[in-house]
Structures are given as structure tokens and as C-alpha cells.
């Protein structure tokens, strides 16, 4: 990892949510560097370092992935499934950050090995609180796995 800066990959197609979550992270005083991709295919490209994302120093492997469910081109569930099948990526913590509270979505995500499932709150203060907890837990307290081989 370059320096001590942790990278969060935020996969989100709604520009409003991208802005709000960036602001909430800022208000939560997170030191993480946020990389944003806006659809499932780009997420796969970023993580595999292909196409526009071949420069690893510019697009580092993230320490945490925030994944929306409903995405253009490839759904969050498909991206999650793909990540868990990649030897070099499968241990990266993935947190679903979505609007859906449907049990079917929640259960499917856990079945595929998601690390946490969060529903975006409508109240902005609650969102700030959530980002604060997320940052301190996943990027602070949590022990990170080494990159898996095979």
C-alpha cells in the first residue's frame, strides 16, 4: 500500500449520492482516499487494473469497497460475485451501501460473502454518523487481510 493512505472504492451511479457520501466522509473526518466508479463494469475494470485503470499507483487496490446494489451494466451482486471469485481480490472487505432493505437482496449479498450491509439513511446527520463508524471500524480497528494468492 502506498504510504499510510487507505483507498475506498465507491461504486455508485447516482451523482447526488456520490457527492453526499463524499461530504459525509469529509464531515466524518475520514483520511481515506475515495475512488469513484459509476457502473459495475467499471468496478470490475478498476479492480482488475484493465483499460483506463491500468496505472496501479494512480488507481490502487482498495482497502474497502462500498458497493451499491442497483448499478448500470453489472449489478452490485454480480460485481460481488466476481470479486469473491478473483484470487487476488477475494479477501477485500466489501460493504453494501444501498437503498434496498429487501430481505432477498440482503440474504443474497450475505450468501455471496459480503462483509456488511448498510442502508443509506435519508437523514444526512445519520449518514455522517454511518460514515464515521464505517471509517473507524473498517479502516481503523479492523485487521486487514494480506492479498490472497491462489
Amino acid at each position, binding site marked *: 500500500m502506498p504510504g499510510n493512505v487507505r483507498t475506498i472504492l465507491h461504486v455508485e451511479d447516482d451523482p*447526488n*449520492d456520490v457527492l*453526499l457520501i463524499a461530504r459525509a466522509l469529509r464531515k466524518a473526518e475520514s483520511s481515506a482516499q475515495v475512488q469513484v466508479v459509476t457502473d459495475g463494469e467499471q468496478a470490475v475494470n478498476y479492480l482488475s487494473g484493465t483499460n483506463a485503470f491500468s496505472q496501479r499507483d494512480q488507481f490502487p487496490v482498495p482497502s474497502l469497497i462500498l458497493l451499491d446494489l*442497483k448499478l448500470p451494466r453489472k449489478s452490485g451482486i454480480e460485481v460481488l460475485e466476481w470479486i469473491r471469485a478473483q484470487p487476488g481480490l477475494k479477501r477485500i472487505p466489501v460493504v453494501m451501501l444501498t*437503498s434496498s432493505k*429487501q430481505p432477498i437482496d440482503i440474504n443474497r449479498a450475505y450468501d455471496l460473502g459480503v462483509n456488511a450491509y448498510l442502508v*443509506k*439513511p435519508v437523514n*444526512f*446527520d445519520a449518514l455522517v454518523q454511518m460514515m464515521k463508524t464505517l471509517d473507524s471500524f473498517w479502516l481503523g480497528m479492523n485487521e486487514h487481510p494480506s492479498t490472497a494468492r491462489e
Partner: protein
Amino acid sequence: MDPAHNRLFGLTRESAPAPRPRQPEPSSDGEVSEDEEKVNILLVDDRADKLLALQAVLRELNQNVVVAKSGKEALRQLLQTEFAVILLDVSMPGMDGFETASLIRKRPATEHTPIIFVTSMNQSENHVARGYQLGAVDYILTPIVPQILRSKVAVFVELFKRTEEIRRQGERLRELEEAAFTRRLNEAVDRLEAETKRNRFFTLAPDMLGIGHFEDGRLLQVNSAWEKILGYTEDELKSVHPFDFLHPDDRPMAQEKASTLIHGSPLGYFETRVRHKDGSYRWIGWTAAAFHAEKLVYIFGRDVTQRKTNEQKIESLNAQLKQRVQELTDINSELEAFSYSISHDLRAPLRSMQGFADALLEEHGDRLDSTGQEYARRVVNSAKYMDALLNDLLDYSRLSRAELERAPVDLRHEISELLVPLENEIKNKNAQVEMELASQTVSAHPATLRQILANLVGNALKFTHPDRPPVIRIRSEQRGRSVRISVEDNGIGIAAEHCDRIFRLFERLHTNQAYPGTGIGLALVRKGAERMGGSTGVESTPEKGSRFWVELPAA
């Protein structure tokens, strides 16, 4: 007619039908051939020398010769014995030959016995005429020429024998025929009896029984059930090929069955439609068996129309049901998609409204006057309210659709759990919550029960009386096979006329400013209780308080 012709005719007529013989007397001559029975010849003459002479001539014929010395004696002999031929002397004292002959002819048994008159040459003219009148067959003139006598008598002996043989053969034949006939008759009687019994079944059977011709399939015999079931008379059924009555679509199958039958394979049960005389079709279930030796097909048919109609009804009902289920499933999945869309897509813009109004206030608030700030706050509040509304609507629609599996639920545990998120509100409002649980368990879907009770406790905390601190009592009691859980408050109460209305969706009694809410909570309580096989209601006194209750099956 000339005498010659007459004579000839007479001979033929006389000799043809043979009299019935009696067993001949045992012969005194003793010369009986092994295989040929002797016949009797009667010699009638009053003169012993003549008798002797005749006997001597006839001995050569080797037959049984009986002698009689008078007409009377001859008649006596004729009563006992049957004779092939009688040689009768015409001129005898007392009863002469003619008289004797006429008496012989009068007896039916001897009516046709051939009589040869023996007369002297000089009297022949006179005698011949009379003799023929009396039915003589021939004449012998004395003096006798032995060869002529023998050959004439031999003719009659032979004739008698032949006749006798024919008669015996005829008798034997008749006996054989009679035996055969009797046997056939007995068989026929037996068969008739058996058939009569079978015929009773044939007539009685409510099913169609029939016998058809093996090759062309035409019906030869049908019972009355055919007419009852199909409307055609027996003659109508017999006059047309049975396949003509079949539904055109069923004919190839029936044809196939028929050829199976003719080739000697056993035929299983099958069903066809048959046209009734009134033009409608009846469903008939068939079985048939072929009897090659008799060239007959035995046919059994049962009217299964009712069953078929029922089956078709059930089938069509099933199809309708399937279609209905499919429609409902489609509607349901549409609803799912709709709720999903509410959950995901409608909340995103709300989040933006709220988030950016917040950002506006915080980062650019110094550039807004108090009205502008108030507007921004209103945007935030509206977004919050709409979020609550969407959440409640989602809960309500999920409750309407989801399968709610019931299990025994521990009430104390559930109530303690639902009170946890309300702790701050309870403290802030200085409320007192009491539990009196006479029944500890209830049969319910745990999450739905918690949702119901949380709504009721939430309402009790919301609609408080401004003059007194809220007191909330949560009780449970067994009522028959149910458990009634009630949440009682000392709040503002509800007028009786509103007590039913408030359980309906979006029904509200107060403005959002006075008591915020979505108007969904109590509708959710009622829907949840009903979905779990229970009921809900309220007793209330305005200004004093309300008691909401939910009744659910006991665990």
C-alpha cells in the same frame, strides 16, 4: 282301361308298401341258412295230396312253408304269423278261396299280403275275373308246372325279403335319426335354458351389451340399454355400420382397435364419443372380445359421459385456476418490483433533497435570511416525512403479501425488545410503562407481532394528554382459545364515531403538526393481526384514554 294294364297296375300297387311282419314261427323243416332268415309261405287247400305236392315243389325254395286245410284254418294262421305269400285254392268246401281272400283283405294286417289263387284250367276264365276283383296278384293253374310255381312264389319271397330289409333299414335309420334328433333336442333345450338365463342378464344390464359380426362389425344383437343410452332403435342400430355413429375424430382409433381384435390380440378398455340420435355426443367406454370360431364379437359399452363431463369440467377449472394463479403471481411480482422501486429509486431523490438542503443550511446559511433558512428546513422535514411514509407503505405492502409463519412467541421477551428503541422517548416524556402479562405466550409471526405492538406503544407515547404524564399498561389475558394483548394509555382518547375509521389506510384525526404520523400505523396493526388469524380493536373515552387490543390464537 284294359285288364292287362289294370293287372299290371294292381301288382305294382299291391307289392310296394310292405306289411309289418311278426316274428316268423320257428321252422319245422330245420334247413335254415346261417345268415338268411326264412320267410313264411302259406298253402291253403282242402286236399292233402295237393298240399303235399305243393310242399314238395316249394321245398327247393328253402323257406318256411305252412299249410292250412281250410279257409278258416288259413285265417287262424294269418292271425298268428305273417306271410310273404299265400297260395289259395279256389274251390274248397265250405268257405271257398274267394271268400277266404275277401276276409283276408278285410284285415288291415293282411290287406296287402300277396295272394296267388290256385285253380283248374277249365274254370280259369270265370275265376280269374273274380280273383282280380278280390285283389289277387296272380294265378297258378292246375295241373301245376313246378318251375312256374317255384319261380312265381320265389318272386314274392324275394319281394318280401327286400321289403323287409328296406323296412328294417328304414327302421334302423329312423331310430338313429330319432336318437340324433332327441340328442339335438335335449342340447337345444339345455342351451335355450342357459340362454334364457343369460338373456335375462342381457335384458337387465344397464350397460350396453351387443354381439356383432366378426368381419364387417355389424351389430347382430343388442340389449335395450343401447336405445336408452343412444336413442336409436334396435333396427336402426343393426342397419348401419357401428362406426358411422362414432365421432369422426375417434374413428381412426376405433378402426385400429377393431383390427387389433380381428388379429386376435386382446383388446383393452377404450373410450370414444358416440352420436346420440338427438345429435349430441355421449362418451362410451368399450371393451370387446372376438370369438373366431363363432365369427362373433361380443361388445360391452358403458356410458361414461357424466364422468367425462366432470373430468372436463375439472380440467377446465384447473386450467382457469392455473391461469388465475399465474395472473396473481404476475401481479405479485409486479408489486414486488414496484415496492423494490419505491424502496430504492424513490428514496434516492429524498436523500438528495435532505442532504443538499442540509448542506445549503450549513455551508451557505450565512447568506440566507431567516425565511430562506425556514424554507430549507421545510425541505428537510418534508423529505423526512416522505421517507417515513415510504417506509410504512413498504411495511404495509410486505405485510399484505408475505407468508406469515406462526410460532409460539414469548410476550415478555418481545415487548422488552420493542421497548429498547423507545427508551429515550419514554424518558423524555416522563412516561411510565407497566406490564401485566397473565398469558406469557401467543402463536404469532414474531417480527409482525413486534411491529404491531411497537405501533401501539408508539401511538400511546404520541397521543399523550398535555395535563398529565403518560402511563402505559401492557396486558395479556387468555380469552377462550385466544390471547388478548392490550395497550392502555391515559392520553387524549378517541371519539366513538372514529374508532373504526382509524384502522383504515391513511386515515388521520389530527394534523401532522399536532401529532406527526403517516396514517398507516393502525392499518398495519389490523392487517398484521388479520394475517396472523387474529383481530384487533379499540375501546376509548375521549380525554381519558384508549385501550387498543389485539387478539391472537393461543400458543
